């Protein structure tokens, strides 16, 4: 038994290294687009200096709340003022801000910069406006999950509005999707058809009542609004995926999904999915709970489980430290990476009760999933790989080239709604330990693919 496990481990590792290099070789070239090069430059500056990083991101964050170009420029210089060592272009910006005309010019330039950056991560202000980009991706061999950005839901009206936006997004996509060309890899696995229309939704947006110490309150309120969204998805043959947020909302989220999906009207659709976050210490138990549920339910089609590392790491750690709690997340990145691989194997082994979706930009994490899927004797199409628009574009292109099933998570919303999301992505992109950061610094492939 032990020897067999070791053999499998070695085989997977070898296959992983091979696949990882193949994918890496297929990454599109860099630096073709000058605007993109500029963004890279800004990101590079931000990753080198933590003070500067904070200043720039605080500026991005406040942009939609500024009332004029002058106001924008004042905020920008206010943040830069707190940076000790300013690189020359920013020093020049500080000088410009001395005059009204200078501030107007600076504000305009900065606003354009933020808009451009936002556009990299956010496909459009509305689902309709995003249709072109979505079709483009589809034609290039990648499916999409649409995500509706929004402000924090604090009122009933906001929750109702979000639910209405969900239905509108489903309908807009469903109206457009039949006109897309056939893409067999994206449209079925051996368990059956895969919906062309795919929407990701957040429980916290569906209720103002979600509170960590009283999960049932928010759960019931969100269920009331999610039911019609699920019903509409079922009618339209669409997939609805429930994102996972911070630990504070996690119990309510999982309970809600299981409760709704077990309701008689929803037992034969729509296709639905949840998220497991591998940075959580208790994620192995959570996955077991999901597997138990999936084995026990007769529901069809099978639940999709998106495996991620988790997007709220800093928040979880700071909150726990402030309260004197043990953080619910691993504190060394390699532990998250390692756990991600453990959960990947467990998830792939629970097929066909669950459909696996591996969401990561980390070449090692992704190649590991592909290799293990092979080891289990399955074809590429039984495994979905997911990336975020703006962060995983190159990876998505490389994966589709190799005939793998890729889905790009595409946020939609205006600048105000999108800011929190944008800042999170920027932070992630410039975090020292992030895979994308390593990759941008030119870390050699051996290290990128090294076991965590």
């Amino acid at each position, binding site marked *: 038994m032990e020897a067999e496990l070791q053999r499998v481990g070695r085989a997977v590792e070898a296959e992983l290294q091979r696949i990882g290099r193949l994918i890496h070789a297929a990454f599109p070239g860099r630096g073709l687009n000058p605007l993109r090069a500029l963004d890279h430059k800004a990101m590079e500056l931000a990753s080198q200096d933590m003070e500067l990083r904070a200043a720039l991101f*605080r500026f991005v*964050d*406040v942009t939609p*709340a*500024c*009332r004029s170009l002058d*106001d924008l420029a*004042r*905020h920008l210089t*206010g*943040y830069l*003022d*707190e940076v000790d060592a300013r690189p020359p272009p920013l020093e020049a910006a500080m000088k410009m801000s001395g005059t009204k005309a200078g501030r107007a010019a600076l504000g305009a330039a900065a606003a354009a910069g933020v808009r451009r950056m936002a556009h990299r991560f956010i496909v459009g202000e509305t689902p309709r406006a995003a249709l072109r980009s979505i079709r483009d991706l589809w034609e290039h061999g990648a499916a999409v999950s649409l995500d509706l950005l929004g*402000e*924090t839901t*604090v*009122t*009933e*009206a*906001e929750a109702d509005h979000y639910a209405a936006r969900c239905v509108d997004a489903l309908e807009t996509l469903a109206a457009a999707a039949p006109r897309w060309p056939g893409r067999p890899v994206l449209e079925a696995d051996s368990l059956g058809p895969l919906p062309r229309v795919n929407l990701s939704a957040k429980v916290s947006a569906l209720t*103002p*009542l979600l*509170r*960590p*110490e*009283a*999960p*049932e*309150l928010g759960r019931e309120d969100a269920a009331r609004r999610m039911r019609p969204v699920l019903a509409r998805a079922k009618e339209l043959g669409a997939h609805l995926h429930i994102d996972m947020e911070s*630990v*504070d909302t996690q*119990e309510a989220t999982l309970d809600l999904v299981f409760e709704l999906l077990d309701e008689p009207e929803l037992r034969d659709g729509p296709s639905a999915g949840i998220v497991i976050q591998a940075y959580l210490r208790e994620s192995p138990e959570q996955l077991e709970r999901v597997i138990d549920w999936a084995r026990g339910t007769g529901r069809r089609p099978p639940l999709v489980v998106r495996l991620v590392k988790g997007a709220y790491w800093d928040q979880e750690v700071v909150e726990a430290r402030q*309260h*004197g*709690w043990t953080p619910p997340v691993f504190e060394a990145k390699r532990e998250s990476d390692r756990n991600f691989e453990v959960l990947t194997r467990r998830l792939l082994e629970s097929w066909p009760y669950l459909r696996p979706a591996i969401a990561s930009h980390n070449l090692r994490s992704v190649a590991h999933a592909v290799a293990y899927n092979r080891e289990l004797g399955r074809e590429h199409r039984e495994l979905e790989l997911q990336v975020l628009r703006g962060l995983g574009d190159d990876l998505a292109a490389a994966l589709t080239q190799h005939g793998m099933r890729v889905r790009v998570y595409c946020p939609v919303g205006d600048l105000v709604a999108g800011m*929190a999301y944008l800042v999170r992505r920027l932070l992630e992109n410039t975090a020292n330990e992030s895979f994308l950061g390593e990759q941008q610094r030119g870390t050699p492939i051996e290290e990128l693919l090294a076991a965590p």
Partner: protein
Amino acid sequence: MTVSEHTTAGFRNEPILELRRAPARESLLAALRELDAKLPLKVPVVIGGDRGAAEGIDSTDPGAPERLVARAGRASEEDAAAAVEVAVRGFREWGARPAVERAEALRGAAARLRERRLELAALQVRECAKPWGEADADVCEAIDFLEYYAREAIELDRGRPILQAPGERNTMRYVPRGVTAVISPWNFPLAIPCGMTAAALATGNAVVLKPAEQSPGSAGALADALYGAGVPPDALALVPGYGDAGAALVRDPRVHVIAFTGSGAVGLEILRSAAETLEGQDHVKRVVSEMGGKNCVIVDSDADLDDAVPEIVYSAFGYAGQKCSAAARVLVHEATADTLVERLAGAVNVLTVGQAESFATEVPPVIERESQERVMSHRASAADHLAASAEPVPERGWFVPPSVVVGLPEDSPVNREEIFGPLLAVTTVRDVDEAMDVIDSLPFALTGGLFSRSPATVERVAARSPVGNLYVNRGITGAMVGRQPFGGNRRSGSGAKAGGPDYLLQFVEPRVVTENTMRHGIPVE
């Protein structure tokens, strides 16, 4: 801005319970069931170790007024005098003990509270209708005060370094003042009496503790913990009672320090009474007072409303607005006023009003009938300006619907007086400077808030704001011992910061000794 850190060796805040975990919630509900089986608690007057009858004061559940939570003795003026008499004796012995030994006793009391923390939180749920999260935080704060002051007192006992010149030795030390009367409120029924008592005891004073008549149960638990940990019966008396007992303590010529937290009216009366030097009084009384507030939150045009709305709602309506730090007014920039009011109103409309024992409850009943009537009458006076209200509220219990009123004339009493209930007034201002003018025109200066993402604005408001505790881009309640030393300025208090490095100084007298070390022209060191 550079930030320096004062660390108190080995101190760390007691972790609050992780209520997002179901087992933590279940453990509290179990503690509540156990407590219910023991009610009513008996809290006698305790003087010199003699326990009187537990009769005279009934404390009831604000959410179910027919439920008797504690029966307490009612200390008379004579009891107060007797307690002081014993404390004078107790002081001689306790004040002479080494600081380390006293600190040991306080830390022992912290350990006892820690052991009973679930039960003590449950007691606050019943006795004061404090929702779980806040009840638990109050118990933790009480533990923090004991641990923090115990350590700070040892530090203070070392004295302060001062300049030395050749031929002389200068020392500066701090000694206890004497008998301290602690007069505490019901809204933090364990933490506040514990903080004032612990500070006085840690520095070597004897204490006569007169807790609020609404919450004798928690005070009884505090006294038990202190006695159990070795504080001598003569060094601490417990005199539950009404205003007459408190007034007698304040007047007593043998009392040196009066530590008071409560309403402005009572606080000013205490200051007046304590200023009078009576026949046979050989000292000037020191009053440490924490009084009311009319706490304002400024929302600038660049504020992130996603943060501001929930933080304001919690600051204003958590524990039904019955914290001295609670938000009473919002001063919002005209550019963002409409959006803020709309979102704030929507958020208030969905507040969960209910019994404190339910984890879903955000707004519990207020403490007693008079409070309910006071808040309701203020609310009625502003009825034309009502923008939101979470209704209906339960029939049984002293409930008040949490409400937002908008655009009252500046001189409306709702804008100027401390209401101490779930009523929030929103005023639109031209800019942050106008907001600061409004704040300057109020007599209070306890806490304040600012939501702004401009470093320049944050700096400007911090420099100009008179408040004792200014919170930027977060809620304005929930000060933590050692992290947010707490207390108000102007008419809000005497400025001492509870849970901070200066607090103990109010309970001691500095003494400087200068010794000539020259003998026949030869320095003897």
